[in-house]
């Protein structure tokens, strides 16, 4: 066989490879050329009948064709595969600008009152306060009498108490008007030293622009043998700095009167108003935020603690009010409306757990 024939065969086969339009056709070309009965294989079979001197040269020539065709096949296969992938990918194109579902973590919210209660808990836990609780429906004794508010005391009228229809007035249970009865429960159940805060719902028979018949308070109580007003002042100052997340806070302690503390004080916090925004820690205006004092000896006696030995302080803060101040919410009544627009706007994402290490807000 002449070398020119081999060249022609090579050219034909390479042309077949080049013109194969898909992988199936390419396989046909491969079988037709390099398969057992393929044209190149057929030439190889002729080798055996050749004289040895021709055999070597012819073998080399045929092999060169085989290698050339094989390489072309590989290259073409790769090209076709790439094209096929490209075509598939093109067909699979999606509109990735379509918005995806945000998922439950983005949809869910924690109520601001819960979040702020967690913040308060975090701060006081660091100062060694435990969290105490008591029922909403309280005994008259715990809500009033043990707190040095005997029947007929004028302070009872100031409390706008909710009573129960079937219960005897002045005796029967009431909806607690403050979280202070938790002081009584705590002192009756535990021996000093005591450090607790007690957050929870409280109720007053009062409803207008700025009052709701249900709201939230947190009570604080420290009882031991040495805690005095200086400690109270420190605790409240530290709390306000930590809670409002400001380096300094201006506080004003005013003498006041509560039947269950003596001496008693109300505490104002300094603020500045910038537009509708309230900035704590700046300015020279005052806002009342809490009542506090040294636990009255009569309260200690009511829970069988000797006022000559034990002493301590108590305070009560409105959680809703703190929440409004810190996060700039204008209307208390919206807190209890269950309005998704408000809750989504002011509520907190489920994973934003307040910690001292990571910051409260």
């Amino acid at each position, binding site marked *: 066989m002449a070398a020119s024939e081999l060249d022609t065969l090579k050219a034909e086969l390479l042309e077949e490879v080049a013109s194969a339009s898909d992988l199936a056709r390419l396989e046909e070309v491969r079988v037709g050329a390099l398969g057992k009965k393929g044209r190149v294989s057929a030439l190889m079979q002729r080798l055996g009948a050749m004289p040895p001197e021709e055999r070597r040269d012819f073998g080399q020539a045929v092999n060169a064709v085989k290698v050339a065709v094989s390489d072309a096949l590989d290259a073409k296969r790769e090209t076709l595969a790439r094209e096929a992938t490209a075509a598939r990918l093109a067909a699979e194109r999606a509109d990735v600008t379509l918005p995806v579902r945000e998922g439950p973590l983005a949809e*869910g919210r924690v*109520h601001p009152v819960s979040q702020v209660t967690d913040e308060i808990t975090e701060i006081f836990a660091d100062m060694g306060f435990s969290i105490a609780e008591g*029922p909403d429906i309280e005994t008259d004794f715990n809500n009033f009498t043990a707190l040095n508010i005997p029947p007929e005391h004028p302070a009872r009228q100031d409390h706008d108490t909710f*009573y129960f229809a079937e219960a005897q007035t002045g005796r029967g249970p009431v909806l607690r008007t403050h979280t202070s009865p938790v002081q009584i429960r705590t002192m009756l159940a535990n021996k000093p030293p005591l450090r607790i805060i007690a957050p929870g719902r409280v109720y007053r028979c009062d409803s207008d622009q700025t009052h709701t018949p249900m709201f939230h308070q947190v009570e604080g109580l420290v009882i031991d043998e040495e805690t005095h007003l200086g400690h109270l002042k420190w605790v409240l100052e530290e709390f306000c700095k930590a809670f409002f997340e400001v380096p300094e806070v201006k506080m004003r302690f005013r003498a006041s009167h509560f039947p269950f503390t003596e001496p008693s004080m109300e505490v104002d916090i300094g603020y500045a108003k910038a537009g509708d925004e309230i900035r704590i820690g700046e300015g020279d205006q005052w806002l009342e935020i809490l009542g506090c004092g040294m636990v009255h000896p009569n309260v200690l006696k009511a829970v069988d603690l000797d006022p000559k030995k034990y002493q301590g302080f108590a305070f009560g803060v409105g959680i809703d009010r703190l929440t409004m101040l810190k996060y700039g919410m204008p209307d208390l009544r919206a807190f209890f409306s269950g309005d*998704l627009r408000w809750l989504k706007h002011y509520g907190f994402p*489920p994973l934003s*757990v307040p910690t001292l290490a990571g910051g409260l807000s």
Partner: protein
Amino acid sequence: MKFTLSWLKEHLDTEASVEEIADTLTLIGLEIEEVLDPAKALGEFRVAEVVTAEKHPDADKLQVLQVNTGKETLQVVCGAPNARAGMKGVFAPVGAYVPGIDLTLTKANIRGVESNGMMASERELELSDEHTGIIELPAKSRVGSSAAKALGLDDVVFDVAITPNRPDCLGVRGVARDLAAAGLGKLKKDPVKPVKGAFDNPIPVRLDFDKETKDACPVFAGRLVRGIRNGPSPAWLQARLKAIGLRPINALVDITNYISYDRARPLHVYDADKLTGAVHARLGRTGESFEALDGKTYKVDAEMCVIADDQVVLGLGGVMGGEETGCTEETVNVFIESAYFDPKRTARTGRTLNIVSDARFRFERGIDPQSAEPGIELATAMVLDLCGGEASDVTVAGRAPKSNPPFRFDLRLIGRLSGLSLLHRDILRKLKALGIALEGDGHVRKAAPPSWRPDLSIPADLVEEIVRLTGVDRIPATPLSHLSGVAKPVLTPAQKRARTVRRLLAARGLVEAVTWSFIPESEAALFGGGDAALALDNPISTEMSHMRPSLLPGLISAAKRNRDRGFADGGLFELGNAYRGLEAQDQSAAASGVRFGQSSLAGAGRHWSGAAPEAGWAAVKADAMAALEALGLGQGKVQITREAPDWFHPGRSGAIKLGPKTTLGVFGELHPDTLAKLDADGPMAASRSISAICRPRKPKARPSRPSDASDLQAVRRDFAFLVDADTDAGALIRAASGADRVLISDVSVFDEFTGQGVPEGKKSLAIEVTLQPRDKTLTDEEIDAVAEKVVAGATRPPAARCARPFSGSHSPTN
């Protein structure tokens, strides 16, 4: 409690400014509510003289004035008929704010004539409703000087909130004493001089009580002043009363009001000619009534202390006098009453009859028991001074009640309770200024509180006095001792559980709401509550009348409101108490959730990737189970039964139980009747897990045994069973799981099918059983043996009483 600066200065010798006085009052516990300075409010208004007044060229009713303001002469257009040349009035310049018309004046052009300011009427200054003409000031008023001063309005008014423990500060003198003790001046000496009687008091005073009730009115001083001339009180007295918001009546009544505010000493005056016989203080009798000064008739009862003459009830002691015997301008003989009434009884009477009066306010807080006699002397002196006449002797019936007895006071208590360290000298000076006498020396003294301070009875009370007069700002802030190096955990297991569940439910896309603890009776009844015992006596409204037996009605109502507002799809949850009774143990914490519209874990509402399914039992069951899972009570540990309450859809609800007795929660789609009664639309589904929160056992935070994750490959086998359509999948799972408790690690349901190929009344349930080899790979024989046990277990009663293998074939999936 209101008073003016000049009034205060009658009792207090001070150079302090209005601001200092206000700030000090607030700090010492007499909180300023408002300081009203009329001179400041009217600061821009000046005395001006009308130089000329001519008719406006283009308007009949207007005049063009030339006004001398002291600085310049300005042209002012004025519509007042009384404006005339030579008169002096109140001028408001351009730029001044005129409160009565709520306007800041600008230069104006009135019908072609320029006007630079205005001459004001009383109404424009909000002094009265008078608007027929402009204010005419006395001719001697100095042009250019402050109009407020010329109007006699330069007295600053303080409005102070008095706490209920300080009845002494319901009189100006008490306030002055506190300010003096706080170092803001000196309390003026003001001894009350007795007025000598010119004749015997002809009107006997009787205290008709028995031993048990004599404290209702322990002392009553009375005296007659005859031949007086009642009429309007003098200008200074009227001005003071008006300044604090009281309406002057006549001299006699004004005197009692004045002394009530000046000395916290309520009095009463009777027209003596209208009295019959003696004056009695006694308890009321059923059937008696009287017409009070407020024009209303009140029925009295045997609990109330009344003042009566020999025939009728005249008034209520310490609360309000009667119309019939009150003093008028015709009164010529006046009987003055100065008594002490028991605070508790006075409060009760006032509350029962719903009478609010200055007298009640003072008596129920406790006035100075020693003030009956000085009070009547002061009143007599003023009556003689303002109305003339002749006073009788004073008749005093009974005896003033004792004030608080002296007590031991260890001065070191001040430091112990407050952290202040003060010199004895300063302590003694402050207490003395308050009228508190200290006997003895050294640390321990005997303290005698003054009669006007019923709030001082124990040593801590005196510490409060020292602290408030010293100022809390002088107390050094003292750190609390650290109980441990690193703060210890402080939450109880229940508190931790509540926190976990809250964040978990929020993480499932639910939004936390806080709804009212009280709901309408009808809604409470719908959810198993509404008992009369849990009804409020004085609810804000019928919408808030009963303590809620469940959080669900509040959440469903909130969901409904959101749907009405256009939020058709979503979910809400709440953590809070539900109430079954009045005792503490009947108030239990619960977590509840509601999904409405198209709502599931994946999201809510329509979406290109597929709309959320309608809120159904499965979504809320998943919420409840997830909450329980987070508390260590996963699907494997609890049982699902159909024992859900009847406000749920009976076929699409269930209870989550831990053993036969403990219900951890309930879930389901709401019964259409429930929704209809709450005026809400479905789809809506809800879950509640009470015990999840208050379950007493502490779930283990850390795994208690090592993980049993095996290196050996798990084997999975599928089974399909044809069962009666009402067979619960839960029973099948339990049966399959029980086939081999060691090897079977999980059973899941991957198909529930009815329809083509499945006979009527039947369904096909397909389960996947996972076998986890423990120590060696399982042989085919071992696997087949377990598979046979699964089939046997599933087809044996009671698990799936009518089950039989639908397809015996099982295919390995791995």
